[in-house]
């Protein structure tokens, strides 16, 4: 990171409602999110030098060259524009790409925007997901996407002796946090028993262990230091970025621990000068498309030791005391993908928006109580092979 030229700040954020199906096209959703981000940054599209688009597989929206299709709704008309893509990791990778646009000195203001319209794939985006597998070696076995998560969850539980009752508490926490998120799709006050009694999808994954498919968009505006200081009194600095991918041969590695997330986190922490993550990070948004993933990723982010994220946590009181908004280390105060929803790329960027609002003290009812200075957001995806990490400071 020796050659990073400029500091980069987030100066505005925007988001749409997250819902299972929306009337608006992907372009129109993008426009809503982009417009809100620009307005909150106090600028117009004419001030934007370049646009970075993030969106997951084309097969969801059902439009090939989705990046180009979305372009005008994302404000990319006649501007330097690029789509980045690393599966589920895309939402956090989008502002990372926007960061290097600005840090390099090449652009002063960049809009980073992520969109997903999964409802186009009807009746369920699952069918589109099946085309991400190796066509020769895996697809003939008739897999659905949940298989790989179930296998990973089982391995995680089995290696560390973690119980399903403990993992379910993450879903309880995040869905409850989402009650305070104005865009949330599945906020709920549920209990561990509700999770354990919900429909079995792919054992040990049950219905309330999973985030829903969604439509939605989210955006942030990034600016170079001299511009950010002119435009706002409360810039939130991007102090560390990291990303790492393992191979698609996911059956050839031990699934109990996401090493690639750790590598991504190490890269971001080194850049941000963070030596002791649990002590130096005040608020975290690890990627939680499934409840066990929050534990898996918090461990990859080194916020807890391997297998110990849920150590000693037995009930709701325990988990809120440890990871609630007024807990030791607030985790997923937004409500996460489990509560707010999972329009893939937009969900990852929603987490970056949340850290931005938290560090500015603008999260309203969701505001964490520890006066946070440093936050981390992380996303994950592809065939269980990518980690994307961003560290921000007020």
């Amino acid at each position, binding site marked *: 990171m020796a050659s990073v030229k400029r500091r980069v700040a987030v100066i505005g954020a925007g988001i749409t409602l997250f819902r299972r199906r*929306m*009337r608006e*096209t992907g372009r*129109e959703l993008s426009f809503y999110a982009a417009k809100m981000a620009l307005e909150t940054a106090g600028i117009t599209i004419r001030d934007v030098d370049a646009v970075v688009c993030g969106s997951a597989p084309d097969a969801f929206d059902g439009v090939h060259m989705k990046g180009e299709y979305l372009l005008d709704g994302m404000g990319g008309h006649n501007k330097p524009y690029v789509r980045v893509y690393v599966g589920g990791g895309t939402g956090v990778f989008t502002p990372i790409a926007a960061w290097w646009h600005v840090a390099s000195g090449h652009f002063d203001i960049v809009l980073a925007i992520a969109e997903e319209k999964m409802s186009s794939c009807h009746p369920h985006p699952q*069918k589109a997901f099946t*085309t991400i597998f190796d066509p*020769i070696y895996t697809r003939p076995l008739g897999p659905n996407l949940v298989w790989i998560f179930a296998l990973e969850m089982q391995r995680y539980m089995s290696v560390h002796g973690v119980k399903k009752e403990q993992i379910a508490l993450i879903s309880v926490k995040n869905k409850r946090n989402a009650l305070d998120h104005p865009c949330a799709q599945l906020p709920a006050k549920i209990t561990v028993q509700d999770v354990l009694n919900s429909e079995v999808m792919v054992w040990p994954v049950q219905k309330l262990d999973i985030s829903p498919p969604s439509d939605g968009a989210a955006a942030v505006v990034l600016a170079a230091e001299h511009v950010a200081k002119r435009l706002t009194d409360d810039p939130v600095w991007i102090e560390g970025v990291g990303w790492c991918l393992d191979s698609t041969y996911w059956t050839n590695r031990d699934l109990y621990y996401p090493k690639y997330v750790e590598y991504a986190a190490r890269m971001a922490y080194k850049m941000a000068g963070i030596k002791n993550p649990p002590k130096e990070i005040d608020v975290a948004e690890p990627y939680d498309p499934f409840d066990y993933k929050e534990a898996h990723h918090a461990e990859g982010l080194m916020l807890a030791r391997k297998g110990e994220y849920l150590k000693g946590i037995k009930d709701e009181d325990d988990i809120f005391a440890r990871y609630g908004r007024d807990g030791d280390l607030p985790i997923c105060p937004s409500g996460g993908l489990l509560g707010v929803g999972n329009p893939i790329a937009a969900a990852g960027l929603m987490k970056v928006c949340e850290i931005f609002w938290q560090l500015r003290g603008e999260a309203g009812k969701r505001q964490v109580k520890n006066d946070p200075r440093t936050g981390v957001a992380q996303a994950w995806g592809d065939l269980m092979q990518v980690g994307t990490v961003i560290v921000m400071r007020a």
Partner: protein
Amino acid sequence: MSLERPRLPHEIRHWFGDMECDYVYTLGIAGEKFYAGLKEGRIIGSKCPSCGAIWVPPSLYCPECFEETSEWVEVPDEGTVYTFTVAYVGPDGEPLEEPEVYALIVLDGANGGLLHKLGEVRPEEAYIGMRVKAVWAPEGERKGAITDIKYFRPVE
């Protein structure tokens, strides 16, 4: 692991399959206006509150100014051929019995071009700048789709 050397089987070279998905696309705010208009035999555009441009097909926002559309306006179903092409093969590369003429048509008063078919015209008669008018499907047969306009024909 066994160490004997069995005969080498032939390599398998290809694996055949497909990627099939079912889609239901919502039309969106602007799309619903446009396709509902077509069903009624009207072409709807969107007007930018900032630059005043009228976009056809309509958009929720002006792609130039990035301002939200405030007004939906009807435009004439007549316009000018901006450019055209003559297709001798179909979507799967199959030869067509009769060549088809496709044009980008700028409707009177509108920005942007509408892609559509030209009819009642031989390929060699089409030219850039040609004046054309929509030929609509009969009212009862319109579905709120781009094909509610059967084609554009030349006008004097």
